[in-house]
């Protein structure tokens, strides 16, 4: 129960649930809607940059800019689909594909050395020099059997991350 759930009909909830492949329960979708409305302060139907960055926990995250580019201008249905990778019901493949999409900022289906370097720069900031970053990346790439100019595709990511324990789950608080 809650006041804003009256704005979402059962049809809406089912449509959203189908769009995210049933990774969220109906109650979770209602909670996410309340959260979406809470963040979308000017009721524009989508969450703007300012509104996202007004959440300090999000703003201090090193990858906030990248994630923001992925979630910018999404309506509620797409917002839920975006977050579905973090559901406990999401498959490992789904999660790995999400990570791939974070790296593949131009969306061409391939992750190049520059993309890897960009993300590493976001994560390490000014505390490693650019040259050191390139060295580190080249070193681990070669060790894994890739070359500096290799282009990684989702199946490569699946191979590299597939057997790690990927802890990528967020609990949606349900009132």
């Amino acid at each position, binding site marked *: 129960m809650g006041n804003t759930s009256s704005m979402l009909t059962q049809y809406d909830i089912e449509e959203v649930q189908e769009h995210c492949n049933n990774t969220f329960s109906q109650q979770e979708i209602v909670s996410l809607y309340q*959260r979406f409305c*809470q963040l979308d302060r000017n009721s524009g139907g989508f969450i703007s940059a300012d509104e996202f960055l007004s959440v*300090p926990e*999000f703003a201090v*995250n*090193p990858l906030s800019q990248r994630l923001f580019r992925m979630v910018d201008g999404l309506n509620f249905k797409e917002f839920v689909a975006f977050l579905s990778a973090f559901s406990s019901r999401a498959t490992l493949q789904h999660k790995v594909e999400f*990570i791939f999409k974070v790296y593949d900022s131009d969306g061409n289906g391939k992750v190049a050395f520059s993309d890897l370097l960009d993300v590493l720069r976001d994560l390490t*900031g000014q505390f490693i020099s650019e040259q*050191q970053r390139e060295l580190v990346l080249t070193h681990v790439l070669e060790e894994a059997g890739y070359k500096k100019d290799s282009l990684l595709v989702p199946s490569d990511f699946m191979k590299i991350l597939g057997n790690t324990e990927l802890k990528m789950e*967020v609990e949606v608080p349900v009132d």
Partner: protein
Amino acid sequence: MSKLTSSSSELDLDRPNIEDYLPTDSIQEPHAKLRLRDLLDISPTLTEAAGAIVDDSFTRCFKSNPPEPWNWNVYLFPLWCLGVVVRYGILFPGRVLILTFGWIIFLSCYIPVHLLLKGHDKLRKRLERALVELICSFFVASWTGVVKYHGPRPCARPKQVFVANHTSMIDFIVLEQMTAFAVIMQKHPGWVGLLQSTILESVGCIWFNRSEAKDREIVARKLREHVEGADNNPLLIFPEGTCVNNHYTVMFKKGAFELGSTVCPIAIKYNKIFVDAFWNSRKQSFTTHLLQLMTSWAVVCDVWYLEPQNMKPGETPIEFAERVRGIISVRAGLKMVPWDGYLKYSRPSPKHRESKQQCFAESVLRRLEEK
């Protein structure tokens, strides 16, 4: 969109470690050789970001929870309607009358005292103090305030300041009706500002302006001067710097704790049974907030005057502030969150992000060395 400024002056390097409060999944396992999958696996950072999107402790502090409706029944609904009629039709006009009456008495005593007793400062101050306490009592009566005060009443002594948690501007009125405090407040526009510049000046209030960076030093100096003055009214400070929803406390600003004086904590807890006293300044103006209080049954709250605290040897002002915040939060049953209330108005300082980056960078370099 308005440009928000980074509040670098507010977040000092020796503040309590914020990483203790945030999820620490991004800390890598310390001793294993660096592999490609370790660099590719950004899932901890992503999970933190997604967690913040889904729910974060900062937004929770300022969420006003609407009261649960109870009138969803055939016989409860007419009862509720009757209640509305009584509240708006009988109580509200009655309260407006009481308040008007109070203002008339107050102004007819205050203006003569203020103008005629210009020469006799001590007497004038005493009378003005009593009158301010009077008008505050009228205000509290106009919301049918049921305020229970626990603990010894504050006394006016030099070298002491009072700090309290902040839920709404009515905190000041609730406390002022018992003791005439001098308060430090944000200057507001409108009729509130008028009241501030006339009546509250007489009690010795200090003004600050959130948006001015240099303001901090000026205010700090004024605070120190006030505390050292022997016959100034006791100083009341709300170190959170902003109104919080009375379920949480945000970080206390250290300004009140580095004056070298005794700090007397006051805890205020509102009972939401009839009305939520949290003033959500983003959602309503102060006038609307007051009207909402005046059309509800009662404002119920508890005020605890707690044991005065001194800075322990070797304690920094920030640690002292956090310790007092803990005392107040425990007494009032509030949860502590590690955020600076001013983040409502500005972005977090880049220092947080940089410390995460530094942590990760160091672990990468260290693991690179491992063979």
